[in-house]
């Protein structure tokens, strides 16, 4: 900022830009878009978990009223047409084999959505049903059918010392990542006591209200897609490869979306819409139903073995995590999730040595991909559950143990890695202090308090971002950046950052829509990078504008504030320099966090994103029903650019974590058939689930890498919740639950049957 006084816009709580339009239903979504000659798509999906496609006959369907085209894998095949992060194994339409219920097998574009849907019934597919592989255990069994007998196209990143990864080490394992501190064995050997426990993590549905939706059209210039995808530039690369186009012939317009929680990252239905549009030579809109959405991508279920070594006095020495993630049928982002889950999954304690092995196991279930927390939810559950159980076994107080052994600011468990940048112990004390005094003990319904600290990192790996800030001739500003507004409040916060640096009031700054033809390049709404990386580029681009204004004014020290340069209105300065119409002043910046070749992932964590939670529960021992009486959550945004946005993110994530803890679980039967993949049968949290005491704390460390000391906060709120609640149940009853969700029957069994 060019004005010497204190912050004027950053740190001021404001309602989200565009909130009113969303509330009033004026915000258009891709499913609302129209185009001349528009066709509507419907997708025929596999009814089987695993089957060979013997034949597909589309002639009858093609003759149905309104049908323009019917597409199958025969219309688009070859290795370059598959997609997936690092392992490209997912076809646009099933090719030869279907590997999960709901996999797209064929698609129709017709004049109306009803005609497209009705015509699906006329596509005849002959399947030869193959043995399903519904679970991690089934996939790893010696006699398991190989889901991918042939190798996929892969691209492995380069790892630094200590880390290694392997794509497709065996047919049903997609990816294996290992990390091992060279001193691990020696430290482990010196331990006075070791603990090994196994934890299960149930996969949840993203359950985003806005479905997958896109509108594809071709012109002489190439392909143009309007979509709710959160990674427009990554999608552009995928589409360019799949349709053999240069990137400048692919345009992705990313619209403000109606939630995603990770589901809308990377390539989704866009290539299918593009294929239909190309075949039909007309624009095609593809909008999935909620049921289809629930079969398209999910969170990763996991089986996790946690091995922990302590010294004689109970201090942490070493931890090893053996993590099997249920990757479902196709890669999606699993390889990335695996690396991250393993690399930072040990919990924020002063370990002397760590090691992990993460495997992504392929099953004949919906593909698992990015989900808020990106592997951190799974590891925080297992690691934080074990801390409480081992404290109980050693008769130690779990809160006191944590406070003694949490990483202090600046400390790291891997030499050379970024030090902790939050006051972990202070945060823990804060959430505990924010609980109301526990109510008097209830004779028939035991109560207990539990805490947990979840952890993930944010900001990606040496991630680049570009931004531009355009000052118009009247002195107002337009921010251009590639972060998609997915409800996280990026638009508002980026506008605040630019306004602060330009010395403009917030209402004189607009953030432009994201369009790959127009917007500066960014890797997308990912890794909670908006505030830590893209905002830094926006701030620098605004600084560039200020520098240019000073140059135009001819004074290097000119005060730029409130639309004036050294007292002269910007509009007047621009007219003086550029003539009666003035001119835009365009500031640009590129930022990138540095590489650190000596580290396992070859870059330092850009920042740490801890999640603190304290919960008080009441357990009905006769039914196993758990009531969460109090829940306090905290997150650290470094500096809260917009504290209302921070509260919204942490609170919303906490409710997601509450669902994960108590009931969310996408299930399949032994044939791989989904049992509750509909909004009617799947239990998502409701307003009435909120605990009577539900508090959110925003604890600003000021230590973030972003402008004004900001960090990301969007993925923190859910990480600690499942473990905090299970820890509270253990405190109340002694029942040591190791599987999610904590359903009444599971709690009842832990209390009465298993013990």
């Amino acid at each position, binding site marked *: 900022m060019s004005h010497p006084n204190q912050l004027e816009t950053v740190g001021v709580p404001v309602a989200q830009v565009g909130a009113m339009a969303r509330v009033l239903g004026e915000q258009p979504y891709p499913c609302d878009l129209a185009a001349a000659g528009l066709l509507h798509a419907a997708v025929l999906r596999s009814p089987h978990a695993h089957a060979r496609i013997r034949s597909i006959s589309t002639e009858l369907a093609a003759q149905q009223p309104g049908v323009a085209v019917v597409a199958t894998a025969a219309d688009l095949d070859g290795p370059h047409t598959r997609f997936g992060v690092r392992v490209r194994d997912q076809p646009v339409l099933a090719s030869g084999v279907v590997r999960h219920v709901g996999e797209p097998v064929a698609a129709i574009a017709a004049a109306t959505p009803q005609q497209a849907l009705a015509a699906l019934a006329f596509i005849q597919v002959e399947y030869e049903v193959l043995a399903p592989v519904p679970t991690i255990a089934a996939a790893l069994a010696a006699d398991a059918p190989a889901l991918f007998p042939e190798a996929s196209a892969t691209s492995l990143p380069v790892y630094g010392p200590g880390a290694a990864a392997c794509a497709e080490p065996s047919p049903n394992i997609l990816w294996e990542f290992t990390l091992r501190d060279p001193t691990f064995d020696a430290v482990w050997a010196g331990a006075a006591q070791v603990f090994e426990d196994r934890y299960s993590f149930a996969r949840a549905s993203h359950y985003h209200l806005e479905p997958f939706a896109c509108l594809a059209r071709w012109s002489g210039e190439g392909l143009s897609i309007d979509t709710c995808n959160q990674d427009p530039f990554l999608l552009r690369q995928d589409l360019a490869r799949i349709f053999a186009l240069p990137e400048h012939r692919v345009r992705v317009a990313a619209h403000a979306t109606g939630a995603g929680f990770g589901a809308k990252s990377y390539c989704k239905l866009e290539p299918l819409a593009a294929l239909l549009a190309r075949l039909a030579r007309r624009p095609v809109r593809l909008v999935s139903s909620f049921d289809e959405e629930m079969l398209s991508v999910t969170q990763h279920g996991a089986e996790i073995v946690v091995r922990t070594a302590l010294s004689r006095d109970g201090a942490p020495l070493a931890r090893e995590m053996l993590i099997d993630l249920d990757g479902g049928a196709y890669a999606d982002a699993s390889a990335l999730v695996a690396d991250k889950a393993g690399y930072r999954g040990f919990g924020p304690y002063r370990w002397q040595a760590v090691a992990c092995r993460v495997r992504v196991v392929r099953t004949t279930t919906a593909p698992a991909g990015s989900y808020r927390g990106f592997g951190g939810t799974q590891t925080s559950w297992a690691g934080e559950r074990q801390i409480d159980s081992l404290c109980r076994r050693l008769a130690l107080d779990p809160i006191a143990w944590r406070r003694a052994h949490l990483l202090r600011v600046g400390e790291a468990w891997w030499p050379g890695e970024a030090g902790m940048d939050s006051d972990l112990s202070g945060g823990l004390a804060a959430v505990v202090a924010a609980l109301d005094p526990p109510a008097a003990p209830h004779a028939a319904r035991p109560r207990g308090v539990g805490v947990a600290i979840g952890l993930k990192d944010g900001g990606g790996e040496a991630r680049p971002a570009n931004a531009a800030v355009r000052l118009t001739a009247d002195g107002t500003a337009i921010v251009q950046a590639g972060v998609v507004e997915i409800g996280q409040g990026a638009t508002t916060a980026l506008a605040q950052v630019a306004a602060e640096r330009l010395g403009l009031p917030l209402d004189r700054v607009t953030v432009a829509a994201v369009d790959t033809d127009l917007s500066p390049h960014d890797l997308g709404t990912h890794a909670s990078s908006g505030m830590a990386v893209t905002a830094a580029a926006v701030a620098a681009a605004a600084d560039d504008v200020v520098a240019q204004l000073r140059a135009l004014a001819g004074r290097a020290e000119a005060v730029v504030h409130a639309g004036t340069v050294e007292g002269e209105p910007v509009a007047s300065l621009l007219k003086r320099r550029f003539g009666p119409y003035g001119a835009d002043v365009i500031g640009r910046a590129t930022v990138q966090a540095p590489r650190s070749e000596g580290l396992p992932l070859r870059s330092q964590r850009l920042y740490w994103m801890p999640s603190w939670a304290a919960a008080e529960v009441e357990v009905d021992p006769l039914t196993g029903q758990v009531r969460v009486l109090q829940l306090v959550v905290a997150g650290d945004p470094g500096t809260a650019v917009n504290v209302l946005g921070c509260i919204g993110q942490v609170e919303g994530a906490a409710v997601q974590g509450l669902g994960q803890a108590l009931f969310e679980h996408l299930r399949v039967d032994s044939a791989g058939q989904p049992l509750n993949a509909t909004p009617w049968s799947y239990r998502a949290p409701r307003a009435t689930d909120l605990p009577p005491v539900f508090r959110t704390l925003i604890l600003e460390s000021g230590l973030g890498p972003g402008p004004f000391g900001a960090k990301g906060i969007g993925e923190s709120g859910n990480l600690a919740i499942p473990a905090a609640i299970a820890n509270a149940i253990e405190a109340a009853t002694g029942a040591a639950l190791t599987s999610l969700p904590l359903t009444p029957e599971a709690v009842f*069994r832990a209390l009465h049957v298993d013990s």
Partner: protein
Amino acid sequence: MYAFTYQKPKTVAEAAAALAADGDAKVVSGGQTLIPTLKQRLAAPSALVDLGSIEGLAGITVAGDTVTIGAMTKHAAVAHSAEVQGAIPALAALAEGIGDPQVRNRGTIGGSIANHDPAADYPAGCLGLGATIVTSKRELSADDFFTGMFSTALEDDELVTAVRFPKPKRAAYAKFPNPASRYAIVGVFVADTASGIRVAVTGAGGGVFRATELEAALTAKGFAAGSLDGVTVSSDGLNSDIHASAEYRAHLITVMAKRAVAAAG
């Protein structure tokens, strides 16, 4: 959804005639069960016969010791009715616990019992209280009306028009809800009635049923929760699904029965 024709008769007789004329026609009341079924293409009726315009099918009357509820009466109307709250508070509470506000303001008692979802609440209230189901053709005791999962004694062209509940000495309903839909995983309706103690169970089995072992214990030892101590219900034939195993359901039947007895006072 498949195509169908839509009729809105003015009288019960017209509605029954429409059903008799077309074997594939179906009645629609609140539509809370039927419309989702159509949307999922699980049913393809040729015609929908909407009972919404028939006068006199909705309403609550209390005469002496009998509460009569018209088939088209919404769950919310029963829940909020001062007459029902006064005469059979357990029934008003049962209605208040069905689904969510939208469902309670559309769904009807006639639709609920005609549908006889094995996890629905009203069948437990009807069977527990020993209600009489009034149809376009006859009157049936609840014991005779509910015949099994999603089935009743109703004939194809027969409509439920009302339900008559005798006022009990005391009664209560305790439900352990399904976490997703709020239907009953196990719901137990207990009533101390002029004709004896009745315990009706929903959610646990293939349809609503009377827990005779619990009735016997309460009758022998008195209408008190303690009378059920040590009384277990067999899990044979009970439902096992993603929400609960048969063993857990069997256990819950006794727990919910005790809670209902305690609540009935």
